[in-house]
């Protein structure tokens, strides 16, 4: 446990080594929130408008909620794993007395902690600038389930990244390509990071609900907003948990296969 605490501390300090990089990344997040905020603010500009099951308060809470959920779920260091494999540097870690998956989980938690601190600052700043109406959830039961759904989302994204980043075992030049396709394109659109998924037709939503993507961002926010309750809420938590198991087994299988073909070029 002690060694992972040290990894956490070092990783946290490392983020400050590349301060400009980190600040630029947070600036980009704020800019993306601006676009989504003004888009939905315009759509809901008419007094008392209800659309796609949202009123103005709820849709703008969804947008502001994105700041926190993205800081919690989508901030990750695991994307560096592909480079480690492609350059052969993963061998260095395998020789050390640390579990590689736990090592990156610790680095992930460190990154999330730092991003969360900044997210609080950004949230306050944007709140003061934009003065949006805000929907406060006061049901403690829903708040607990909201937090559980976030923890499940963090694990789902972590495992998903480990699967995508295993591509360089077979094709070292495709590390960034796989990351771009799955985590930049698919996660951005299918997780609800750009728009709430319930604007899509019901048939499409039903299909999406059986994939892991909506449980990364859309589902936790729906729980917070109280838009999913009762049986559907527990069904969502259940599907999300099942996905973690499926992805976990798939990740283990693919990494075992990967190590068998790996020749550590560059080492």
């Amino acid at each position, binding site marked *: 446990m002690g060694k992972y605490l040290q990894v956490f501390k070092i990783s946290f300090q490392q983020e400050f080594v590349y301060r*400009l*990089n980190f600040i*630029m*990344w947070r*600036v*980009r997040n704020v*800019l*993306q929130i*601006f*676009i989504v905020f*003004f*888009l939905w*603010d*315009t*759509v809901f500009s008419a007094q008392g408008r209800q*659309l*796609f099951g949202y009123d103005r308060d709820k849709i703008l809470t969804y947008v502001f909620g994105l700041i926190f959920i993205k800081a919690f779920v989508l901030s990750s260091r695991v994307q560096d794993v592909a480079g480690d494999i492609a350059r052969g540097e993963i061998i260095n870690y395998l020789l050390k007395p640390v579990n590689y998956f736990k090592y990156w989980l610790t680095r992930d938690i460190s990154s999330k902690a730092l991003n969360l601190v900044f997210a609080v600052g950004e949230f306050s700043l944007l709140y003061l600038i934009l003065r949006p109406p805000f929907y406060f959830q006061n049901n403690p039961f829903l708040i607990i389930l909201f937090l559980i759904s976030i923890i499940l989302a963090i694990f789902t994204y972590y495992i998903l990244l480990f699967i995508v980043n295993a591509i360089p075992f077979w*094709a070292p*030049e*495709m590390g960034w*390509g*796989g990351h*771009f*396709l799955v985590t*930049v*394109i*698919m996660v951005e*659109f299918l997780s609800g990071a*750009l*728009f709430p998924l319930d*604007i*899509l*037709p019901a048939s499409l939503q039903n299909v999406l609900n059986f994939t892991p993507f909506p449980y990364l961002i859309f589902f936790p926010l729906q729980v917070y907003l109280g838009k999913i309750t009762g049986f559907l809420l527990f069904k969502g938590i259940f599907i999300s948990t099942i996905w973690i198991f499926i992805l976990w087994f798939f990740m283990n299988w693919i990494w075992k296969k990967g190590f068998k073909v790996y020749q550590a070029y560059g080492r």
Partner: protein
Amino acid sequence: MKRLLYYLRIWVFMSRNSFLMVLNQRSVLLIFLAGKVLRFLFFISFLFFLLKGAENLAGYNSTQTIFFFLSFMVVDTTAQFFFREVYRFRSYVVTGDFDLILAKPMNALFRVLMGGADVIDLITLPPLYAATVYVGKLLNPSLENVFLYLLLLVSGLLITAAFHIIVISFGIITLEVDHTIMIYRDITSMGRFPVDIYKEPLKGILTYFIPVAIMMTLPAKAFMGLASFTGVLSALIISILFIFISFRFWNFAMEKYSSASS
């Protein structure tokens, strides 16, 4: 004219080399192409379903809103096709390879700005242009409006060129290019929607400081007959002004270049 042909031949030569490098890695090409096509389709679907429910966005109907998005894509993708080399510029400065570019008998700015045309964008451009023409036809524009649209697209591309020059100049001074270019792209991506949706002071910033409104929204507005003569004239003047400023900044950055990495 002779000089122009000389640079055209160099550009064709550099682009061919750049294409060959990407075509050598077909799987990478396919994965990025699939990503770009998926992103485009996802966004068009989002706009379609949004407008189906909301009926209009800041007073624009679904065809008009999709045309705004397509016009944004035309400017953005065309700029990426021509100026992809900018994304590789930092490594030239950090490794000292920029000195080798400076020693060549051609304009160094031309080399680092247009030296690596992107074949993936080249593949996506024809269907994008075709989709823009198709949706544009549904808006029944007059010949005059089409002319203004094309003129303003060129003006928008000049401003994107100016911004890319400013980014690489900034890169010479600070060694930071990657995030600056991505922040530039995040800001311009606000042009995916008509800038009428943004409120002041952001709208003012997007019109005069980083003129996304002029680069992406105004051409589409002119196409719909919604741009004034003053607006068009101002756009042309601003684009020339931006190019002028970017050249001055490039010269300033070159004076600061110390060749420290060589």
